[in-house]
C-alpha cells in the first residue's frame, strides 16, 4: 500500500479544467470528497463517481479530496485526480 507523502494539487481554475487537491485524512476516515461546481446539482454525483473510480484504481484511502470544477469532461477530471494522487503518494513523479 502506498503511503501519503504530502498535500498535492493538480489542474487549474481555467475553463474546462478542474483543480483537485488531496490532503491527508484522519486514520480510518476513508475518502472524503468536497466538490465545488456550478453544475453540481446536475452533474455532482457523476463527477464524484468519476473521481472515485480513479481513487479505487490506486487503492488509496484516508484522504480528503477538494475538487473545484470549471466544467471539466471525464477525461480531464480523471487525469487531474490521477496526477494529484500520484503527487500526494509520491508515485511515478515527473
Amino acid at each position, binding site marked *: 500500500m502506498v503511503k501519503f507523502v504530502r498535500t498535492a494539487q493538480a489542474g487549474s481554475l481555467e475553463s474546462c*479544467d478542474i483543480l483537485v487537491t488531496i490532503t491527508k485524512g484522519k486514520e480510518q476516515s476513508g475518502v472524503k470528497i468536497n466538490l465545488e461546481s456550478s453544475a453540481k446539482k446536475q452533474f455532482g454525483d457523476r463527477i464524484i463517481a468519476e473521481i472515485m473510480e480513479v481513487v479505487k484504481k490506486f487503492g488509496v484511502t484516508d484522504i480528503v479530496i477538494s475538487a473545484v470544477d470549471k466544467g471539466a469532461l471525464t477525461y480531464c477530471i480523471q487525469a487531474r485526480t490521477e*496526477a494529484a494522487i*500520484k503527487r500526494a503518494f509520491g508515485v511515478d513523479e515527473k
Partner: protein
Amino acid sequence: MKKEPFKEKDDRLRRTRLYIPGNHPAMIQNAEIYGADSLIFDLEDSIPLTEKDTARILVRNAIQALNFGRSEVTVRINGINTPFLEKDLEAIVPTKPDGLLLPKAETEEDILFLHERITELEKKHGLPVGKIRIMPIIETALGVVNVEKIVAAPRIAAVGIGGEDLTADIGAIRTPDGRELEYISSKIIVACAAYHIQAIDTVFADINDQEGLFQATKRAISRGFQGKSVIHPSQIEVVHRAFMPSEEEIEKAKRIVKAYRESLKKGLGAVSVDGRMIDLPIVMRAERILKRAKAGKK
C-alpha cells in the same frame, strides 16, 4: 519499389500541424473543430518542468477518450536526453497516436533508439508494430548535418524545422523572410524528397500578421515544403488558402494525370502534355496538387 519494413510510404496531407499545449483542456477538447490536418499535443516546450506529469496524463486520457475527427493525432514528446522521455513513451504509445514528434533530433541513433523503444512498447501492449510514425524536428546544426541519415531511419513520415532554435544554434539573426534558414531548409527538403518524406516548415511567430504568414507559406510551398507548423487556430485557414492551387494549376494537373493514366492503359512509355514530356515525379506533383485542391474545397 521494394516495400521495406517501417518505411511504408505516407502520403497523408499535412498542410497544417497545430501545436496545442498538452496541459490545456479547453484547447485539447476543441482541437477537432479547428480543421488542422495534424494536431500536435505538446509535452515539451509549452509545458513547465513542474507540470510534465500532469500534461502527460491529460494528453494520454484525451487521446483515449476524445474523437479528433479527420485530424492526424500526434504528440511532441520530450527529447532523447531528458528524464521525461521514457515516461512520455510509456504513457502515450499505448494510446496509439498516429505519430510522435521528436524534438531536437540530431542523429540516426536518436531515431533508432526511439524506434526500438516504441517497438518494445507496441509488443508489450499488443499493438500492431510499426503503425506509429516518428516525426523528427531538426533544431540544431548537428541535426542539419545528419539529416540524410535521419530521414533514412525507420518510421519517419515527416520532418519539421525548429526555426527559432536553429537560428540561435548557428548564431544567425532571425529575419522576417527567413533568409538565414534558406540553406538549411533546402538541405532538409532535398533529403526528405529523396526518401519520399514530407518536409514541414517552421512556425510563423506573429499571429497577428496574416498577410506575412500567407506570403511565408507561399514561399515555403514554392521551395518544396509540404506543410507548415502553426501555433494558433487563426493561422490554419491562411495556410490552407496558401496551399490551395490556382484553377490553372488544377486544370494542368488534371491533364497530366489523365494523360499518364491513358498512357499506362495503352502501354506507352512516354507521354507529353502541352508539348512537354512528363514522367513520374511530374505526375506525383500533379496528384499532390489535386489532393490539395480537393482538401481546400472542403
